[in-house]
Every structure is written in structure tokens, then in C-alpha cells.
């Protein structure tokens, strides 16, 4: 697989993944672009491009989410309520997702959207599988708490 092929085949899916983590379509596009720049920079040493790209996107998304919050001087909660994404499907749960801290949110998205194992989530977030499991567990618990208020 060439880099161009990876970009053509995976970009859309990665934008969607990033969108679920950062909560904004525009920011997701920007995040994925940044991530692909990183992938390109290391292309010669990457053995599993698809997995590597996903990890890079998730980490960039978590990082971007924090940076955007700071740049816009807004609470993260506000950032997570997108003005530029689709609406209409379980808005209550989507709003609740915006309350989660970045890594928790990324863990939930990887678990329930990407069907990642805890090992894969841990690899993406730079933590152990046990810690990934905890992130998912706490994320789901928080979501429940938010939607049952």
C-alpha cells in the first residue's frame, strides 16, 4: 500500500473517527490532516500503515481537543457540542459524550465505534489494556449518569 492509497482509502473513515472524538467536523478534518502529515513523515518506518494511522489520528484528536479548548478559551464541555456536525440521532447521548474527558471519550469511541479490544485501545492511547478497560468503564458510567439526570 502506498501512502496515497492509504489516504484515499482511509481518510473518510478516519475523519469520522476523529469527529466522534473531537465533536466537530471541521476540527476532525484538520486533525486527520495533521495526523497524515505525521504518518507521511514516518512512512518509511511504518509496518502497519492502517493501524498506525488510526493510532495517530486518535492521539492527535485527543491532543487537538485539548488545544482547541485552550485556543478558544472555552470549557471543553462547550467544545464538545458541535455546531458543524449532523444532528438528530440520540442528541441526549451525543451531548453526554461531550462531557467526557478526552481519553475517556476516545476510549468509548474506539470500543463502540471501532470495536477495538482493550489491548488495541491501550495501544492507541498509550496505556495498558487494564487502564483502557477502566477508561471505557468510567466513560460508559459517566454517560449513563448524564443521560439519566
Amino acid at each position, binding site marked *: 500500500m502506498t501512502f496515497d492509497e492509504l489516504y484515499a482509502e482511509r481518510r*473518510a473513515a478516519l475523519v469520522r473517527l476523529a469527529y466522534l472524538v473531537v465533536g466537530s467536523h471541521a476540527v476532525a478534518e484538520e486533525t486527520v490532516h495533521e495526523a497524515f502529515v505525521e504518518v507521511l513523515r514516518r512512512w518509511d518506518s511504518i509496518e502497519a500503515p492502517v493501524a498506525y494511522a488510526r493510532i495517530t489520528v486518535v492521539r492527535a484528536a485527543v491532543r487537538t481537543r485539548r488545544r482547541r479548548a485552550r485556543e478558544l478559551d472555552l470549557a471543553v464541555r462547550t467544545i464538545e457540542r458541535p455546531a458543524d456536525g449532523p444532528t438528530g440521532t440520540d442528541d441526549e447521548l451525543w451531548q453526554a459524550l461531550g462531557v467526557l474527558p478526552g481519553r475517556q471519550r476516545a476510549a468509548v469511541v474506539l470500543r463502540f465505534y471501532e470495536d477495538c479490544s482493550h489491548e488495541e485501545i491501550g495501544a492507541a492511547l498509550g496505556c495498558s489494556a487494564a487502564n483502557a478497560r477502566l477508561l471505557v468503564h468510567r466513560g460508559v458510567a459517566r*454517560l449513563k449518569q448524564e443521560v439519566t439526570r
Partner: protein
Amino acid sequence: MNEDAFDDRIRRMLQARADALPVEPQEWPPVTEVEVRRRRPVHLAVFAGAAAMLAAVLATVFVTTRDTTQQMGPTPPGPSTAAPPPSTSPEAISPVTDPAPAVASNAGGWYVPTSVPDGFEIVSASANRPPLAANPTWQLAAWIDRTDGRIDRRLQVSSLVPQEGPGGYTFDHDPGATIVRGVAGSISEADGVTSVSWNEAGRMLSASGTMDRERIMAIVEAGTVEAESGFRVDDALLPPGVEHVLPAEPGEPLDLLVTTSLLFEGQGGATLWMTSTPNEGGLPLDGMYVFGPVRRETVGGIEREIATSSPDHGDYTSVSWLDGGSRLAVSGTGMADDELLAFARGVSPSDEATFLDLEREVTDRWLREPATDEATFADGLAVSVRSSAPADAVDPLAGSVLCAEAITRLCAAPIGGAGGGNGAESASAPDWYILVGTFEVDGRKTAIAWLSGEPGDIGVTTNDPERWDPLPFERADGQQGVFVRVDVESALSMLKFSRNGGSGGANVAAEVFDVEVMTR
């Protein structure tokens, strides 16, 4: 709603949201249009090492971690993987060609480089100054071992009388552990350095050096310990070839001297750090370095000691010299000796204003970086953790600094901390972190810790290893962890930070974590 049903609801919501997102197909733009950002990865140990090098003896004695924690303390630098942006100030240097004197005595202890090697950039600058007095009971003894007339092995023994009551501390040795001089102690060997510690005659003692273990233990066992004067060894009892260099006659009063620390990053993982510290106890040039073989060279009219670390201790070289009551050292990785000597020659006496300009420059640059986590205390003190680690770094908090912003602001490398869990012993990142920094905020000497979890025990350790005294602390919640803040009451106290329910923690001694001076 049961768990499975709720999980399904999450799945459906995420899938629907993602599916509804209109994503236009695109081709990768030409490479020439792509901005390839170069980040500045630094290993945390490098940062910590900068401050810790000047207190290596005390760090060895007083910094402890518990359980399986990964100490982020005075470790020599490891390689980093990418290059920082090119430095623009000060000027790049050329190798030394002029042996004329370039450095004069400096009564204040302030020093700055007049140039830095090409491609290097200052990433941490900090200073501390009185009135945090040193422990008057602290004593240092040192010995050297020569091979063919060249000093190549060292041993130093430091000791002090623990403070009485709350805020005191002592070594916490298991009675069933190693026996040193007939009492419980510890012996460890790492990176070419053997370290021994024990309690005796009301003192805490620590021996550390590059001599082989047999020689170190022979000296330790041959000595005497007195409550008033510390550890001494009769010269007649020393192993063959070992010479006594300390204690020496005390030098001039050092009350007004500051301690400074500067850290630089270079391309290709090169690092460079520079420290100046009051020469407590009148340490001679011979006794300044313990980690490897040394040689002497006169550069810029000043005699310098040039030491190369043992292969096990990291690939770095250190140049040390004495000036006006201060001990100075510059150490670098990935640098040629002549390049390091040229840098050392350019280190010049300065004044407070010039040094603080450097501090301000570094702080301003860090504050333009995104925060890993940040929070604000009730009185308006804003604190943050910032890291230059790239997104795919094994340790996402590598190269972190702690920043405090009030009327004034400062970003500086942590002076201590710990990390642990699965990642501590593997190639993956630690599961938890504690970073500790110190600041002077509106006259309050303050320790700030960032913990990746709820705070647990926060306080000072005591002479009783089973007991610690809780300290009142303030907290400010970040997105990724919790910042806690305690007042530093005494230079002799040893602070304890741990996470709630966590297995590890960080104990940090005041002597090691000198209070940083906020920029004005």
C-alpha cells in the same frame, strides 16, 4: 436500562453520527504544500537531570520512591528522537582557539552562556536563591582512585542529622534487608554507580560512587560515624591507591550565592545542560565528578575537569570548574568534546536581570505550547503541565514542564516525580504520573504537584518511617488529573505526594527541589 442495551445505544448513536457526517473524497496534496511540523521531544529525565545534577549527592540521599514506581529523578539523559527548531539566540559558536582568560569571579552566582552550539535551544531555565538555608549538619566526604595518575573512580559519602519532629525524615530500611555497618541498609548498583545508605549515630548516610563495590564497602565499613561531624575514615585504613579529598577547608561564606540551571536541546537528540551552585564545603575540582574517568584541561584560562560517563551511565561528557565560590558544570550528550569545551568557555558571569530575561524567554515559549492539562486555583494561580513529546511518543509526558501563572509566571522542569504501573517496566507509557514543581508565588514558597488521579496522602514524612504528617493542601481539577498545592514550610522538610488508592508515590526533599524564582 441494562448494560448491554446501553452499550448498544452507544454503538447506534456513534454509528449514526459518523454515517451522517458528509466527508468529501480527497487526494493527498502535493508534498510541497504540506507543513511538516517538527516537535521537540525530550525525555523527562533530561529535564529532571538538569536540576538534579547540581544536587546529585542530596538527590541520592533523600529522594525515594516506593513500590514499583519509576523514579523520574536525577537520571542522565537518554536519546531523544527528533530535532527542535533552530535556535536564533544566542549566536552559534565555533571551536575554542583562544586560551585567554574569559571568565572572572562572580560573587552572585549568576551565569549565562554567551553562545550556544548551533542548533541548540534553551528549553528550561530556573534559579533559586536564599533564604532556604542548607542543613547545617550536612557533611560531605569524598575519595578518589587514580589509574596511571589519572583520576578515574570516585566515592562520596554524604550525611546529615534528620530534622526533629514533623518534617524530619530518615531512611526507611526494612530491618530484614541488607546489613551495612551492622544495621539495616541498602546497597544498589545501577548505571555504573554503586549506592549504599544506612542510618547511624543519629545521621542518615549515603555513599555513592563509581569505585567497584568491594572498595566502596571497604571504605564504608572502615569509617566512623559521629553525630557532630559525620563520616570519616582514617587514611591508613583506605584501600591501596585511594586518596582522601574531602572534607576540605570551608571556602568563603556562600550565603549570597544562587543556584541556576539551564537546559538546552539540540538536533538529533543532543542535550546540553549547565548548572551553577554554591560550592558548599569548599569542594575541590578533584571531588566534583563521580560518574566516570576524568582529565584536566585549561580552557579560557581556567582549569576545567572533563569527565566522560561510563558506557552504562549514558553517553555524555561533563566539564566542571570553580569560580568565585560557585561550582559550574556543563554536560552534554551527542556533542564533541571541543564543542562542549567551547560552550564552557563561553559561560560568563552575569547578573540577575540577564538571567531572568532567559527565564522569561523560555517561559513565554512554553506558554505558547498547548497544555497537556491545566487548572486554576481559587486565588487565581493558573497552573499547567506542558509537554513537547510528539503524539506518538512512548511517554506522552516526556519532556514536561510545570507552569505557574499569577502576577508573574514561570515554566520549569519538574524537580521530582514518579510514574508507574505496567508502563514503568515496559516500552509503553506509565499508567500514572506525579510531577512536582516548586514556585515562589507572591512570597509563598509553594510546591505544586500534578497527579493523574485523585490525590491520596499529601504531607511531610517524619523520623518515624511508619508515620507521615498530613499537610493542608489546595486542589484544582484539570481535565486529565488534579493539581495540588502545599506551602513549603521548611527547607528541611521532605514532602510526600501519592494518589488515592495508588501503589506508588513521590517523596521529594526540599534541598533537592529548591524553590524556583518567579520571573518579574
